């Protein structure tokens, strides 16, 4: 019975901790950058951020060495932040500005050919997503 109680308490505490982190966009960005993976809930959080996702990425990346893995994780953040620009609540954040600077910074920081290709693909992706959004909204 004691073991079961300890397990239930552990699960409850970890669930509560995840729940608290899950609502905070910076925690979501940090989790993606640190793990290189994205979970469903983080995807939902990032999709509402747009360029603010890149701003948070600059803050999370500020004290990190940029390995190809870290760069790949940052690209996940940028791409998911621009998955659906119409979901982004702050109109100004629908346009990729900090995102483009961040991508340029990542490009200058690496000599890894595959990372450079992935960065170029992400740049194209966010520019396409924004152009598609502008076209659909008649702007």
């Amino acid at each position, binding site marked *: 019975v004691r073991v079961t109680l300890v397990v239930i308490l552990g699960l409850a505490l970890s669930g509560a901790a995840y729940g608290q982190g899950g609502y905070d966009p910076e925690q979501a960005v940090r989790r993606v950058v640190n793990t290189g993976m994205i979970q469903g809930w983080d995807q939902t959080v990032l999709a509402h951020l747009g360029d603010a996702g890149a701003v948070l990425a600059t*803050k999370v*990346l500020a004290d990190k060495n940029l390995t190809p893995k870290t760069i790949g994780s940052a690209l996940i953040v940028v791409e998911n932040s621009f998955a659906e620009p119409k979901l982004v609540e702050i109109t100004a954040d629908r346009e990729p500005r900090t995102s*483009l600077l961040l991508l340029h910074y990542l490009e200058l920081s690496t000599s890894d050919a595959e990372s450079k290709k992935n960065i170029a693909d992400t740049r194209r992706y966010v520019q396409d997503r924004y152009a598609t959004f502008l076209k659909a909204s008649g702007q």
Partner: protein
Amino acid sequence: MRATLVICLAVILSALGNAQAGSDPERIIRRIVDDGISEGHDQKVIGGLGDAGAVLLTKILADRDLTSNTIDNALVVIDSVFADSNLVETVDDRQPRTALLLLRYFDLSTNDAALKKRIADAVKYVQGDKRRGEM
């Protein structure tokens, strides 16, 4: 009489426009980056921004080629927004995080030794201010 009214209206509208631009941090930062000119009133507006000032810089610099001149002007902005972390209202913005990434970006973007030294000085400056902010 009508001409005088039109002139008065134009002067008032232009003054209103200038007043609005004068307190918009993004416009002030854009002007400093473009012209390298900082006016007395600017410090009052951008001095309380902290890291939010660096975020505005990322947006302004996103579509630009970084010349030595642009980087120099951007360093003026970074120094100004971190002049006194006690003036920064948003606690999170007292920490130079985007600013440090931006300074690393400048460093990667230039081969000019004198400019690299000024960038290194700016890193020390904002980090020194960061330590003061934590005290």
